[in-house]
């Protein structure tokens, strides 16, 4: 039952992440309000983050999966040699690499969003509107 729950969580996470990505794409491409476009971008980024987190799940592990931190407690609980404990740990631990990617992506996302919002503020001050169709569709006089 436990394994089934984990599989369902992972599958649900993948479906949720793809949904977030699609919602975000639709918002960025088709919604007129610039702030809502930014919210769409955040949906998109969160969808990618959720996908990566879901990627790190360990499914179908006898004895259940563990978080990928090798602690003294884990070693003592096994009451065995270091090699045995490490072997068991590597068989049960979640894949920790995607979590590191998510952390970095959150930081990068915060930086890019702040730049985007700064530009939107400046354009709002000049145009008095947040409508992308009014602000962004003007073209160069040479076109």
């Amino acid at each position: 039952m436990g394994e089934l729950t984990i599989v369902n969580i992972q599958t649900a996470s993948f479906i949720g992440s793809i949904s977030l990505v699609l919602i975000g794409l639709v918002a960025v491409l088709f919604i007129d309000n610039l702030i809502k476009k930014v919210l769409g971008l955040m949906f998109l980024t969160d969808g990618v983050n959720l996908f990566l987190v879901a990627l790190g799940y360990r499914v179908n592990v006898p004895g259940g999966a563990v978080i990928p931190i090798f602690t003294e407690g884990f070693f003592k609980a096994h009451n065995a040699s270091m090699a045995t404990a490490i072997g068991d740990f590597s068989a049960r631990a979640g894949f920790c690499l995607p979590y590191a990617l998510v952390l970095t992506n959150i930081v990068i996302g915060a930086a890019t969003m702040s730049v985007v919002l700064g530009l939107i503020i400046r354009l709002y001050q000049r145009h008095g509107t947040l409508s992308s169709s009014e602000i962004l569709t003007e073209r160069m006089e040479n076109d």
Partner: protein
Amino acid sequence: MISPLFSFKDTVPLFVVIPIVVAVLSNFLYKRGRAVKVIAGIGVICLVSLPFLTSFDKNYYVFGAHPEVKSFLERGVAMTFNLGIAYQYTQLQMVILLVFSLMAALAVGVALTMQRRTSGVYLFLVLMAISAACAVALVDDIFNLFVFFEICTVAQAGIVAWMHDDDSFKTALKYMLLGSVAGAMLLLGAGFLLGSTGVLNISDMFEYFTSTLKQQDVPIVFMGLALVLFAWTYGGGLPPFHTIKSELYARASPEAGAILQAISKVMLISVGIIIARLFFWRDVTWQSMLIISTFAMIIGGALAMIQNDFRRLIAYVAVNQAGIVGIGLSFFRKLSYTPTGVRYAWGHDGMAFGIFHGFNEIIVTSALFISAAVLYQAYGHTRMPDIRGLLVKNRDFALLTLISMLAVSGLPPLNCFQSEWRLIQFAFGHGFAAVGLLMVVSTVMVFFALTKAFIMMFLRPPEAGEEAPALKMSFAIALFLVVAVGLEIFFGLNPNLVISPIKAGLGVLFGG
């Protein structure tokens, strides 16, 4: 075989570190114009000298590692575990970074002389973009590729927004919105690849796909291909992003436009090589790259012909040339697997010619953007109908600009002729006659567009009674144009000086 003058093995990360350090110092000293100029000058000289100092015999470097990992290693638990950033530095990277750093350094020099008061913030943005582009060329890790891709996007948008006019803000915002989408797609693609191979290191993935015949045709890998291709089109300015990319070049100050287009070419080549290494085993990869690039070539050439603004014209020429580079990059094809690796049906020649064209294009288009900078400085705009009689105002400038125009049009004996001629020959010789024919047509379109521009701006006599502004070139601009024209002629006469190291680098990256 080209060898560097010295053999420092640990200077590879300095390609990334030096611009960042100079950028931070420039930003910190933003009120002290003279200090900023000195620091930036020293920094770019160091950057240009790096390709001559750095050895590529090791090919693979790991930069930076966490102390905890070291103590972890001492217990003998994970002997090969390393958290450093992996860089791949072959003769190919040396050639690309040499020309990129040279053009970027000269453009920074022009920027320093064109502004009345040197802006540390502006230099910070330019140097961060240069650093990120160098990192993209070097990096051997698909996640760090995403990180530097995002840094480059933000820095490029900042360079355009620095112009402080309404159109620049709009362009920067559009570029950021699309860049955020492209970055997310690249990361999602990296996630798909991580899920299917278990690693993020590009060389490891290449080994995995080369040695493992199973699990290759799974849909998840094709999703990865599609998403990384999406990011490639954005980074390189190929359709559907050609419009925003050309707008980015045109809205930035002209000397920044030179750097921006050079960055785009570095990203186009670097990410294109990564795509070829990761997805070489399916024909759909080179087919997709070929179709997108051919489309870019035609669209760029056609739109260049109808422009009335010189910066805009060059921007579309840059898109057209990006298409030609992309066509060259798509000329690889897996033939069969052998016990020693993969055998390629077409060898590395086509890719080498494409990269050689990218190398040439960085020089030529940068020179044209600097020519636009001279006009912008004199007239405050680059609208061709309003500019005339330049030939009588400054013959040296007219000659230098004309040579760059002829070079990008593919006329002998200049450098772009050598690369385009080889690419066209390759296309006709390997069953791509239609593509070869389209390349000829696009060359004619570019020649027409630039000839029209030269006639309008240089050969039309000034109107009677017109008070024409003085057309003077600063020392930095004259140096840039003379160096660029010298390189155009030199590499036009000695193309193998570039092609040989590129082929050697491709041999290391692809094997065989």
